């Protein structure tokens, strides 16, 4: 992801739609990916992504550049996604103890890529939102602990603790969540 030039940010803040499109093109895959992995479906992911970029467009003139544009957009994305989840009461944290293994039964994946995607979705589905977002940002999007801490506005040790708990949970549930895995 190449950084967006300051001039582009200024132009976009002044209402230049071409400059804003450049910002969109830089971050759209990240925003869509986070919202898709958190919501689990295309419709919600599109709605969240649209909501995020409307907020960015509206607030760009107030962007104070204390943090980088990347961190700022990451934060808007994460907050919007989590709030959307809460508002729509989508997928509350799933406990295997409560719902049993049937919850994760799905049609057999048709390709190796789908198989991996399916396995990752199942793993993520047992985590609460805080743990899930940390796992997505670190394991899939490759953010550093520092970037995750800034994006979530939390202490770096909290990031570490959330990742540790999420991974302990995944290790303890791995055979139930992904039964076909050896």
């Amino acid at each position, binding site marked *: 992801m190449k950084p967006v030039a300051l001039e582009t940010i200024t132009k976009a803040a002044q209402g230049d*739609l071409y400059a*804003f*499109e450049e910002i*969109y*093109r830089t971050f*759209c*895959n990240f*925003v*869509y*990916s986070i919202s*898709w*992995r958190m919501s689990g479906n*295309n419709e919600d992911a*599109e709605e969240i*992504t*649209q909501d995020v*970029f*409307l907020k960015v*467009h*509206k607030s760009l003139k107030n962007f104070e550049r204390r943090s980088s544009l990347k961190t700022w957009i990451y934060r808007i994305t994460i907050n919007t996604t989590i709030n959307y989840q809460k508002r729509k009461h989508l997928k509350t944290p799933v406990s295997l103890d409560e719902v049993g293994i049937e919850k994760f039964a799905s049609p057999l994946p048709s390709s190796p*890529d789908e198989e*991996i*995607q399916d*396995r*990752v979705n199942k*793993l993520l589905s047992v985590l609460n939102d805080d743990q899930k977002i940390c*796992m997505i940002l*670190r*394991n*899939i999007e490759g953010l*550093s*602990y520092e970037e995750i801490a800034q994006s979530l506005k939390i202490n770096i040790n909290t990031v*570490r603790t959330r*990742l*540790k708990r999420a*991974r*302990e949970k*995944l*290790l303890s549930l*791995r055979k139930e969540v992904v039964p076909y895995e050896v």
Partner: protein
Amino acid sequence: MKCKQIKELVLTDYLDDQVSKEQKQSIEEHLTQCTACREFAAEAKEVLKNPFESVQPIKAPDHLWNKIEGAIEKHRQESLIQKAWDALSGTFAAHKPVFALSTVAATILLLVAVVKIPAWQTQTAANDYLNEQFEYLVYSDDQTDVGLSDTWVDEYFL
């Protein structure tokens, strides 16, 4: 380092390559000596790292920009309408003292009308009554003046 510390680091900084060179060396020395920790690290890598690294990136659909562009345009139009409305409201707000004075004046006039009209009406009624009484008395006096025996009172009673 103890096994508990090693396992915690394996689940976090070691798995995420966030450890320093010295820390990494120290952890790996422990892993060569401790079978339980080595197996734990291998399992952690297999379950917690490999599947996530192989996952395909998700891309935003092409049509999404058009939707966002449309929404921005709609929002821009709504903002223009809002601005126009605010400007209009501002115009009225600027003349607020005039409107306030007019309202006060109108209220005072209304109050005066409400208070004054019944009093005037009452006074008029009283005046009418007094006039009637006066005319009656004058009429009575006139009758009396005509002559004592010919008064209608006399005629009535006698």
